[in-house]
């Protein structure tokens, strides 16, 4: 594996002086070349968990109120009164609930993408933020679950969708894409939670050895008695390797199956054979945007995080975002182009409605947020290494991707083959419920940041041990040795 190969930029005046300056520059830039003693680094991570400012609690309290009202009270009200207080109608039987479901599953994709794909390809820049991304997967799926259950007319009977033995021998209908969805999402939730947990074990053990009181008990239970022996590491590496490989097809299948909810239906605009990969790339698009937002916030607000998360990481994720944005544009154009060329009159009607209808502004801003802005900003190394700039780009991409799902679901449902029923959709209680899921996601993330090490310390330390600066004559060369 090759690493960085940074040449001296100017002719050296005093060779020795300049070379040490180059090394310093490299250290400053790259976390992997800037090792700290292990004890000190462990303490830094523990500090970032323990030292909580009053601002944290203020935000926490506000979010708790939003969750209590937006999510639980509003949902209870909707269960008691029926879906009439939401905006769904004929013909838009599916509304923002499904938009949010697809959106949150999309967010959850980046976690696995960053963590598993970068891990199996051994991309070194992944090391400090794999956990931050994996947490998004699990918490995002929780919100997706909330959103899809809210959507049900009689949610108290949700267990009828599960294959449980009963005296009437009634089983779920496996012809229905919704049944496939349930299986896929449950599999993804379970496997991503296990995948989050495995690399966490050494860090939990580290935290256990540095805690007292209830935290000690908490970490002791979760660390499963991990002591760091050679045998334990071998087992753990094996398990992580298997999970990292196995979760990649699961990740692809989940969003493909979500797209089949639409693609398998007989509706103009939905019945598209490219929806599977188009949804997967869309999920990665919004998910990468969310990862970069989370990293910008973590770096800006948590203690000691400026050491772990550096501009080089924003730079690397920024490149990936640019690439994914291009991929999304490619699939979008493919989907649009083939449908338009197909010449089906209902599809034509729908495409015109997307562009010129009352929601045309949304269609246009989707293209601006998902394509124009990322391309205009992310090509520049300086801009994509600046946290607040990529935060804004990530935010806009997420808004754009939410618009995309909104256009696919309620806007496309407004047009069908029975013009007598055409009607627009106006959201009702979906809005507090949607904000509630967003607040709950942030709340869960904040709570997790106080309880579990957000940086996989062992992974960073392992990377730093593998990296070395070597001198060949005048040149400083980074060498990376294979540890695993």
């Amino acid at each position, binding site marked *: 594996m090759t690493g960085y190969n940074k040449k001296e930029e100017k002719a050296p005046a005093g060779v020795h002086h300049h070379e040490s300056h180059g090394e310093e520059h490299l250290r400053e830039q790259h976390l992997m070349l800037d090792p700290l003693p292990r004890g000190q680094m462990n303490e830094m991570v523990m500090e970032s968990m323990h030292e909580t400012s009053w601002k944290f609690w203020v935000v926490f309290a506000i979010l708790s109120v939003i969750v209590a009202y937006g999510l639980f009270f509003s949902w209870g009200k909707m269960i008691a009164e*029926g879906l009439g207080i939401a905006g769904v109608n004929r013909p838009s039987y599916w509304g923002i609930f499904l938009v949010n479901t697809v959106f949150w599953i999309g967010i959850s994709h980046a976690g696995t993408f960053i963590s598993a794909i970068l891990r199996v390809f051994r991309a070194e820049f992944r090391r400090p933020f794999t956990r931050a991304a994996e947490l998004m997967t699990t918490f995002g799926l929780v919100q997706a679950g909330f959103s899809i259950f809210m959507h049900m007319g*009689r949610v108290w009977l949700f267990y009828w969708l599960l294959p449980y033995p009963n005296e009437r021998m009634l089983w779920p*209908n496996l012809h229905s894409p919704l049944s496939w969805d349930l299986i896929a999402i449950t599999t993804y939730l379970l496997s991503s939670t296990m995948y989050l947990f495995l690399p966490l074990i050494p860090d939990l053990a580290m935290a256990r050895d540095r805690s007292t009181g209830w935290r000690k008990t908490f970490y002791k239970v979760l660390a499963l008695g991990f002591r760091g022996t050679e045998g334990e590491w071998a087992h753990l590496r094996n398990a992580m390797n298997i999970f990292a490989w196995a979760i990649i097809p699961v990740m692809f299948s989940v969003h493909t199956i979500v797209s089949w909810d639409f693609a398998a239906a007989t509706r103009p605009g939905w019945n598209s054979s490219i929806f599977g990969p188009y949804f997967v790339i869309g999920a990665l698009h919004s998910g990468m945007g969310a990862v970069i937002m989370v990293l910008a916030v973590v770096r800006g607000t948590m203690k000691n995080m400026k050491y772990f998360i550096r501009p080089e990481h924003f730079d690397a994720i920024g490149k990936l975002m640019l690439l994914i944005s291009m991929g999304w544009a490619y699939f979008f154009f493919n989907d649009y182009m083939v449908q338009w060329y197909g010449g089906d009159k209902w599809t034509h009607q729908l495409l015109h409605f997307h562009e010129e209808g009352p929601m045309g502004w949304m269609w246009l801003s989707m293209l601006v947020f998902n394509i124009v802005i990322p391309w205009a900003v992310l090509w520049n190394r300086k801009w994509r290494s600046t946290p607040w700039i990529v935060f804004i780009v990530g935010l806009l991409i997420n808004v754009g991707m939410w618009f995309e799902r909104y256009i696919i679901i309620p806007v496309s449902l407004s047009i069908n083959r029975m013009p007598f029923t055409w009607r627009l959709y106006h959201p009702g209680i979906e809005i507090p419920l949607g904000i509630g899921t967003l607040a709950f996601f942030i709340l869960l993330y904040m709570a997790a940041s106080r309880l579990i090490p957000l940086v996989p310390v062992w992974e960073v330390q392992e990377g730093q041990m593998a990296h070395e600066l070597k001198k060949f004559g005048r040149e400083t060369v980074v060498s990376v040795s294979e540890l695993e």
Partner: protein
Amino acid sequence: MIDLKVTEIKMGEEHVGKWGMVIDQDMCTGCQACVAACAMENNITFVGEKDSGYGRSMHWIRIERFWQGEYPEIKMTPNQPMMCQQCGSATCEPVCPAFATVHSQAEQLNLQVYNRCVGTRYCANNCPYQVRSFNWRDYKRPEPLANQFNPDVTVRRRGVMEKCTFCIQRIHKAEDKAKSEGREVVDGEFTTACAQACPATAITFGRVDDPESLVSQLARRHGHGVKHLEELGTLPNVTYFKGG
């Protein structure tokens, strides 16, 4: 010769169901008597003006009216009563995750099992005719309609999908009566509420698999019937006539 083994795709006209309807759009006056009769027969609730205006009316049958051109030079199209087409290959059926939308083998009808429905509303999305209605709330019936219920039909609560059943309670009643008298059901012995209420006899209901029944005769006599959206392969059982 290469045998391509092309599977024959049945279109609506070749498909023979059991129960069917013939609707003569030239006869329809758009008086909405069928809509009212259907609501009374099937205990359809009243959603009120506001919800109805927002696309939440729950009528199992509706009269569609269209016009062409700009006001005042408009040309009305014939009224088009639209209800569940009781498709032979219904798109609503496979998408229900709970088997609440199933096909009756005995009657060749699409059934909606109200107490199995969990309200995912996938069937309604996937219905190309948009004839399914969802119970958005527990609606209150205005007096004295609260005292008017058909004891042969269940009432539905909030969160449940429902749709036209071709008055299956009447079908069963007639079949039971015929069975107890040891005979077959006679054509015209009973009909659906909408057909019964129609003052212009625009709606005719009966056995489409019996060539001598009135629906079959009407279908033959007009000879230019249309089945809506049959290009989707749904095999609908309602035939429409207009312009002649």
